[in-house]
């Protein structure tokens, strides 16, 4: 294989970020390139003379390095595993194999590039204005549009390794490790706060890492501050860490090498700096046109010569420093074009002059001249310009250059401030937005605060750090005064030049041009938010970091408003695109197991999820249906045992316990005698059935109630609340998880239980609906004689740690009778044979006890129970529906639960439970129907897959109507 392409860099410099001792090799679009460790993908490619790094979203225009810090989305790559990799900020790894996203064919021969030629036909919002007639054609158009749009391709085979997430807290969080951030850290640190300083690049210093030449002495400043910070034990520095979002009460999402940290900070110092803003002119997006800071990053951090011959377009004194940087990097500076009529008198300006660089004041770049072969640009036309951006294109000169470097101004990186509810206001003389009202505990410092001079930033940061430290301990905030800033007007008010032929880009992510904004305003989309929604300016991957300000400027001009009045669109998380995996973290899925879980596993249970619980649906090895029938028959003919430990289990204690239950449940409990239990039904305040269970009396002042498995938590909660509101002397003890419970059922259950306890369980000694506390198999046990499944049966409740022992003992004791465990499905079938409703299955969100055939459990004569008053309102009305049983003798077509009961066009109700009864040998079920249909013998129609099948209404229960078996 051919040697990788590698072009040597500029001579080594102390502050560079590359490690020249480590050579790496990677591929891009099928060609191999060399790189140094520490190179980002963009720096390595640019350094090797690659100019075409990506294609734009809409017109597939050639793109190169622009901000060199992912404030644009020009360089987006994929490697088959990961997509939309940011080339500017992603380090080269040896052996990487990368291609650009969103190309048809290849990056170089991108067929979709045609759209650029047709752009004249694709104005702002063009897709709203076509493709919809004729209607039937739209799907094809949409498919085409979808295929052209979109960046990376997802790889459905990709695996995500769970990434950790952690909580943390600090007194003062400082976001940004530039001069102001470091100063803030020192101030807060010295004040004794627990400080965390986060910096999203690999080292502290911020812009001074690459803008050194603009203030040579500042490098020294930085180094000394770094050393100082290192000395403070209460200041923790986190590099390569970025704050992605700021939420209520200084709750911040930070992403670093170790995944996500959720940081609670008492005070936050926002020292996030500023986004350098581009100038807008024809072809301002082509490779070779870049921001001043991008050129500086290339030259200083990666020692890459940004271009051979540069034209420097500037609107502030900072740009003069950039020009000097370029010269120092061996770039021939063709000229400095200063948008301003009168150029500054600063030192830098003087140095530029003495360096012999020509300065063209009051001029602008009217257009860049594309070079052939997607090589970027070959020159530019420079014309006189007025401060309002109108340009005299008739007079002007052409300048040969392969790069245009733009230093025309800044926008504060105020995202976090906006997210936290702070406001930015437009400051005319500085021609940019500046933080105004900050939420409590948030402080801004440095360039984000509109302070640009290095010394001023250090001073500003120190003040902010001091205030943050004071706030953290609730002290009065020291006064804050704006440092005197040697840099007055860092931004040009209107670095935007129209061109009749267009292609002057405001938003590079979305290919939004000047005319798009103007035309949108013309059409009536004349507020910042509407322009965004219509033109999609700022909607792209970089969320308008380098387009929103210019967009507002253009809109303001077009609508004759001030920029302040136009304002900006809402700041929302995230400050940088954040992966779903990092946000998801480990993904906890708490699930609950009963104390008998291991026994079910051993017995071959097939588990089902019931809420958070894992419950045996049935027991293998038989297939589902056979297993269920087998289990049902065991219960009917001999004995079965089921784990009902998921039921809610509550002790209601205290002098007013009985009164309390009277109010909570629809039935009567004051007359429930010691040693007895009773069905308990609960309604909500609108009279809708919400839960049921059993209630047993343990003593004068103590009851034991069970609830449905899904209801337990909410019922306990509501009981506690009502107990408090009613001021009753009652204590609610939730034993749900603390108790295990099993139901021993079947004709043989008495014999089996008898072997395990001394308790008199004879028919007379322990009658139906009786309750006892006794030792069973050596365990203190609560026994209820209940008949949910319609057989002689006992529900045994014991402390969770004893449940397994009890289960083993019962199974053991039941061997002679061939006892087997049965699952949820068998229980459902058994109870249906017995005509027992399941709340939630045979009722829904609006069912009253009157409709559900539960009126017998409601004592309307009581003074009060929850829901009673509402039931009194609906009681006199005829029911619209009623639950009744039905049988099917011909069940060649078998309905399923929730198939409809219909009468012609009328929906009368629905099937709520249905199954073939192994005991009765035919299909039985329960359904809602018109009350007049509920008389046994009535034939009802059920619609199944379009056909009507007949069922005959039957009396409940289907099985053992006289209850002999459960009472035996």
């Amino acid at each position, binding site marked *: 294989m051919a040697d990788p392409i590698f072009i040597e860099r500029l001579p080594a410099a102390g502050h560079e970020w590359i490690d020249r001792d480590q050579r790496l090799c990677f591929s891009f679009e099928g060609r191999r390139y060399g790189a140094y460790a520490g190179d980002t993908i963009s720096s390595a490619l640019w350094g090797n003379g690659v100019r075409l790094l990506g294609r734009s979203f809409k017109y597939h225009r050639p793109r190169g390095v622009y901000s060199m810090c992912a404030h644009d989305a020009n360089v987006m790559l994929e490697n088959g595993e990961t997509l939309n990799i940011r080339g500017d900020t992603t380090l080269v790894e040896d052996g990487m194999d990368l291609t650009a996203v969103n190309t048809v064919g290849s990056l170089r021969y991108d067929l979709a590039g045609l759209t650029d030629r047709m752009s004249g036909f694709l104005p702002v919002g063009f897709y709203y204005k076509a493709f919809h007639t004729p209607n039937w054609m739209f799907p094809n158009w949409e498919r085409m549009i979808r295929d052209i749009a979109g960046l990376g391709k997802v790889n459905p085979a990709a695996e995500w390794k769970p990434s950790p997430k952690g909580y943390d807290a600090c007194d003062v969080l400082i976001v940004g490790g530039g001069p102001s951030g470091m100063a803030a850290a020192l101030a807060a640190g010295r004040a004794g706060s627990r400080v965390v300083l986060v910096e999203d690049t690999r080292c502290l210093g911020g812009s001074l890492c690459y803008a050194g030449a603009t203030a040579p002495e500042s490098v020294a400043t930085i180094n000394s501050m770094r050393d100082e910070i290192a000395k403070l034990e209460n200041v923790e520095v986190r590099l390569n860490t970025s704050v992605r979002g700021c*939420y*209520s*009460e200084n*709750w911040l999402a930070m992403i670093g090498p170790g995944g996500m940290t*959720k940081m*609670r900070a008492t005070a936050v110092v926002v020292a996030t700096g500023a986004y350098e803003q581009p100038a807008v002119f024809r072809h301002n997006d082509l490779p070779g046109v870049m921001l001043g800071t991008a050129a500086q990053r290339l030259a200083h951090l990666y020692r890459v010569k940004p271009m051979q011959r540069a034209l420097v377009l500037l609107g502030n004194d900072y740009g003069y420093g950039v020009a000097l940087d370029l010269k120092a990097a061996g770039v021939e500076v063709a000229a400095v074009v200063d948008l301003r009529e009168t150029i500054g008198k600063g030192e830098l300006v003087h140095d530029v002059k003495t360096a012999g660089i020509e300065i063209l004041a009051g001029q602008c770049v009217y257009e860049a001249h594309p070079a052939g072969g997607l090589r970027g640009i070959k020159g530019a036309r420079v014309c006189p310009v007025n401060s309002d951006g109108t340009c005299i294109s008739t007079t002007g000169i052409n300048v040969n250059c392969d790069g245009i470097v733009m230093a025309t101004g800044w926008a504060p990186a105020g995202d976090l401030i906006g997210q936290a509810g702070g406001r930015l206001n437009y400051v005319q003389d500085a021609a940019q937005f500046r933080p105004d009202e900050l939420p409590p505990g948030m402080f801004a410092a440095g360039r984000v605060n509109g302070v640009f001079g290095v010394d001023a930033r250090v001073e500003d940061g120190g003040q902010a750090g001091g205030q943050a430290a004071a706030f953290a301990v609730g002290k009065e905030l020291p006064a804050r005064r704006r440092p005197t800033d040697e840099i007055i007007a860092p931004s040009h008010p209107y670095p935007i030049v129209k061109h009749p032929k267009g292609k002057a880009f405001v938003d590079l992510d979305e290919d939004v041009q000047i005319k798009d904004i103007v035309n949108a305003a013309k059409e009536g989309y004349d507020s910042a938010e509407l322009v965004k929604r219509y033109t999609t300016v700022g909607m792209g991957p970089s969320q308008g970091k380098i387009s929103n300000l210019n967009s507002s400027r253009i809109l303001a001009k077009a609508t004759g408003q001030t920029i302040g009045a136009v304002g900006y669109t809402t700041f929302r998380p995230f400050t940088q695109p954040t992966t779903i995996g990092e946000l998801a973290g480990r993904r906890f899925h708490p699930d609950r197991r009963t104390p008998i879980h291991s026994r079910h596993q051993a017995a071959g249970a097939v588990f089902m999820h019931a809420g958070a619980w894992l419950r045996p649906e049935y027991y293998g090895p038989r297939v589902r249906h056979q297993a269920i029938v087998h289990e049902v028959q065991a219960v009917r003919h001999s004995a079965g045992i089921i784990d009902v430990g998921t039921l809610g289990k509550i002790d209601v204690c205290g002098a007013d316990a009985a009164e309390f239950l009277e109010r909570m449940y629809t039935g009567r409990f004051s007359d429930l005698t010691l040693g007895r239990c009773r069905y308990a039904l609960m309604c909500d*305040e*609108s009279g809708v059935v919400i839960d049921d269970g059993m209630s047993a009396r343990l003593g004068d002042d103590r009851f034991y109630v069970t609830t449905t498995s899904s209801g337990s938590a909410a019922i*306990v*909660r509501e009981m*506690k*609340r009502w107990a*408090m*509101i009613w*001021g009753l002397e009652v204590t609610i003890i*939730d034993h749900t998880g603390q108790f295990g419970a099993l139901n021993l059922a079947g004709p043989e259950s008495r014999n089996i239980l008898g072997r395990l306890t001394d308790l008199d369980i004879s028919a007379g000694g322990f009658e139906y609906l009786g309750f006892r506390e006794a030792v069973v198999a050596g365990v203190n046990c609560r026994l209820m004689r209940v008949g949910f499944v319609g057989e002689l049966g006992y529900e045994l409740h014991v402390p969770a740690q004893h449940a397994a022992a009890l289960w083993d003992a019962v199974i053991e004791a039941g061997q002679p009778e061939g006892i087997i465990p049965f699952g949820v499905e068998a229980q459902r079938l058994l109870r249906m044979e017995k005509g027992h409703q399941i709340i939630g299955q045979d009722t829904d969100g609006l069912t009253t006890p009157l409709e559900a055939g539960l009126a017998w459990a409601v004592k309307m004569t009581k003074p*009060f129970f929850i829901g*009673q*008053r*509402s039931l009194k*309102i609906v009681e006199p009305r005829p029911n619209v529906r009623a639950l009744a049983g039905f049988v099917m003798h011909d069940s060649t077509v078998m309905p399923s639960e929730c198939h409809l009961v219909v009468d012609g066009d009328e929906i009368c109700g629905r099937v709520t439970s249905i199954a073939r009864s192994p005991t009765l040998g035919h299909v039985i079920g329960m359904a809602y129907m018109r009350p007049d249909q509920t008389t046994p013998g009535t034939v009802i129609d059920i619609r199944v897959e379009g056909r009507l099948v007949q069922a005959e209404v039957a009396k409940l229960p289907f099985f053992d109507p006289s209850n002999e078996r459960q009472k035996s």
Partner: protein
Amino acid sequence: MKIMTCPVNGPRPLQEFVYGGDVTEMPCPDQVTDEQWAAYVFERDGAPGPHKEWWYHAPSGVWFIAERDTGTDEISNTYLYNG
């Protein structure tokens, strides 16, 4: 992350709490018309502003009352229910 101060357990992330709705007085069931009762059951004070609300700290099972402005989400006071 919103922090709420439980009168018993102190400041905790909101995820530990269950919202119990506005504190309302149940009218005496036999002294109100059907319409008044329906109003109690269904009608809510949905407008932004200071509300008295039920909150429940799930891990410890403590109910308490929070005075919260539903417009600004500011919690001015939390205390245990006392009759």
